[in-house]
């Protein structure tokens, strides 16, 4: 017993020290603004200074963009804490309806009848405000030694992912790429093994543009049995970078190290770009039967507009039009205004590689009008 005593004391002391270090206060980057808020109107601020905590959750696709928005917004409103838990659209929507969140990020908008009302934090009759805030080109990315880009038509992409085209020197690929030195190499299509909005948008694109080759329809869970599966965007990126001859679909921001395919839009070959993605949304029409604040697009995957890139992921922020709590209403309104502003959209583009909605004036105007409706 005595033998172990000094050692025991030492261990306990170490543990206590670690614990103390962790508990001793806030993180250095989290100064409590509430303490130095004595002066009502802070100097130089053009906006009304808000207070409080705003909780959001949902789509993991928005995670990097939300990081930028939170940081930018706290710069404008140092008294506000914004949380965003990128746990997934499904979980987020469920929790928003149950009333635990101020706003929710979701890859798939609420159904039209769901958007009419009945959500936790909203007043009873309040419909939802839904706006597209995060538009990201989905890149058909591949890893093929010596080949930096390819032209792939929708039906060729579908055939590759269903396994009908299984070699890179297949005549169907060669026909669209006369210049490329296509190797005699097995194609390894990689798909997401987790349920994801990216898969949903990719399959939606294929079923719209190559209905004959792609019969599985739109689905967030990969429907085919062939090919490799990979967990999350990063698993996909790791898989694509690891093997020669792989091809997959990735949000553009994370596909920088890979080769990108241009897809066929009308009769043109279009490379993925932020402008093209925003344009594709602008070329789409609003879904019918929705409220005025419910800006949900029926994406026109078959657009032939010059320069549009219709293989995109559009992720929405959903909020109440009228909140039970006035302060929450103010916070949400202020946050969404920032998110949809040019500054917010550019910040997201810089951290996540998304396409700013503000590059399309009409789209931007519709979104702003919807955000204006938020109140208490």
């Amino acid at each position, binding site marked *: 017993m005595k033998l172990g005593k000094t050692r025991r004391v030492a261990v306990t002391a170490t543990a206590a020290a*670690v614990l103390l270090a*962790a508990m001793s206060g806030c*993180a250095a980057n989290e100064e409590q603004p509430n303490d130095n808020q004595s002066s009502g109107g802070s100097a130089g601020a053009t906006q009304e200074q808000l207070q409080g905590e705003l909780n959001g959750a949902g789509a993991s696709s928005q995670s*990097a963009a939300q*990081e930028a928005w*939170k*940081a930018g917004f706290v710069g404008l409103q140092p008294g506000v804490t914004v949380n965003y838990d990128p746990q997934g659209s499904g*979980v987020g929507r*469920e929790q928003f309806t149950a009333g*635990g969140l101020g706003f929710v990020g979701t890859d798939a908008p609420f159904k039209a009848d769901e958007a009419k009302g009945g959500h936790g934090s909203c007043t009873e009759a309040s419909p939802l405000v839904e706006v597209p805030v995060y538009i990201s080109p989905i890149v058909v990315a591949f890893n093929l030694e010596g080949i930096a880009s390819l032209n792939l038509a929708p039906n060729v992409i579908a055939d590759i992912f269903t396994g009908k085209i299984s070699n890179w020197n297949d005549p169907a690929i060669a026909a669209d790429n006369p210049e490329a030195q296509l190797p005699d190499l097995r194609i390894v299509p990689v798909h997401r093994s987790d349920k994801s909005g990216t898969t949903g948008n990719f399959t939606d694109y294929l079923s719209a543009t190559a209905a004959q080759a792609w019969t599985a329809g739109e689905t967030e869970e990969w429907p085919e049995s062939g090919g490799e599966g990979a967990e999350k965007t990063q698993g996909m990126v790791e898989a694509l970078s690891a093997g020669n001859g792989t091809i997959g679909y990735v949000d553009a921001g994370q596909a920088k190290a890979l080769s990108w395919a241009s897809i066929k839009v009308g009769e043109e070959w279009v490379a993925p770009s932020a402008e093209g993605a925003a344009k594709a949304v602008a070329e789409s029409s609003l879904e019918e039967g929705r409220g005025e604040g419910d800006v949900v697009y029926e994406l026109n995957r078959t657009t032939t507009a010059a320069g549009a890139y219709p293989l995109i992921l559009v992720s929405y922020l959903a909020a109440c039009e009228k909140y039970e709590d006035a302060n929450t209403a103010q916070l949400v309104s202020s946050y969404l205004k920032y998110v949809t502003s040019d500054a917010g959209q550019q910040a997201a583009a810089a951290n996540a590689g998304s396409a700013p909605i503000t590059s399309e004036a009409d789209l931007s105007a519709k979104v702003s009008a919807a955000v204006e409706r938020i109140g208490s």
Partner: protein
Amino acid sequence: MTLTLTRKAPQSDAVATFASCRPTWRRRTKDRLATTAVVGAAVLTAVPLTLVIWAAIQRGSERLDLTLFTNSMRGVVGQGGGLLHALTGTLLITAATAVISIPLGISAAIYLTEYGGQTRLASITRRAVDIMVSIPSIVAGLAAYALFSLLLGPGTRSGLAGAVALAMIMIPVVVRASEEVLRLVPGDLREAGLALGSPKWRVIWRIVLPTALPGLTAGSVLGVARIIGETAPLLLVAGFTDAMNYNLAEGRMATLPVYIYTQWSAKGLDTAAYDQRAWAGALVLMAVVVVLQVAARALPPQIAKLRRNR
């Protein structure tokens, strides 16, 4: 597999094989081969550990700076930021789990050894503990999710829910370890106490528990080490946030394993910054667990002694 091992009776085999005094060449070679295999296995075990630690140092050591321990991820875009919020969350949730599991587990073990005996309740509890040992951690997470979504509505996330999930894993470990340790306390000690006229509970409180204390502590530390690296259940019920949260009862709470996972899975354009944070987080988590293991080793000198006397 292990089932192929010899089942012959030891004595007869021994007599048959060892008839001569000097081992033949064949037997000596076999012996040497076996030694090589055993040493090989030992080396082989060290290989993956070395590789994992090396990978973590190589990829994470760059971010092992002071900022990592003084900052959270609030307002951080790309480079910078830290894991203080996740470290705090891990410590809080682990502490809460321990507060639930250790008193409950040790008390149940006291009942089993000192009071229960072969009663119906004791055998039910033992059976329950046996079953709980085989609860996979993600199932514990699902159970906590089901419980809290029934109580507080779907999608509820809190540090407490995480602690409840982890407690389902930790309780059986503590009960098993404590029961074993309490049995090792010599019966003479109890009898001496009882003979002096002390009531039974005072004998347990004053004599049995102090004697078993180092072992009970070791068992508890063991339980903590088992749960501190758990990811899946916390991902389901504790959620993730980038800011400090000291309140177990409300709001999402970051933990180190989940921090590592989200830094890996949800990156911005500057992917290197996220990767470095993930691996630095891995180093910190491993260090925390090593401190615990060392503590568990430093604590129980009696245990080994008691075990030998058995």
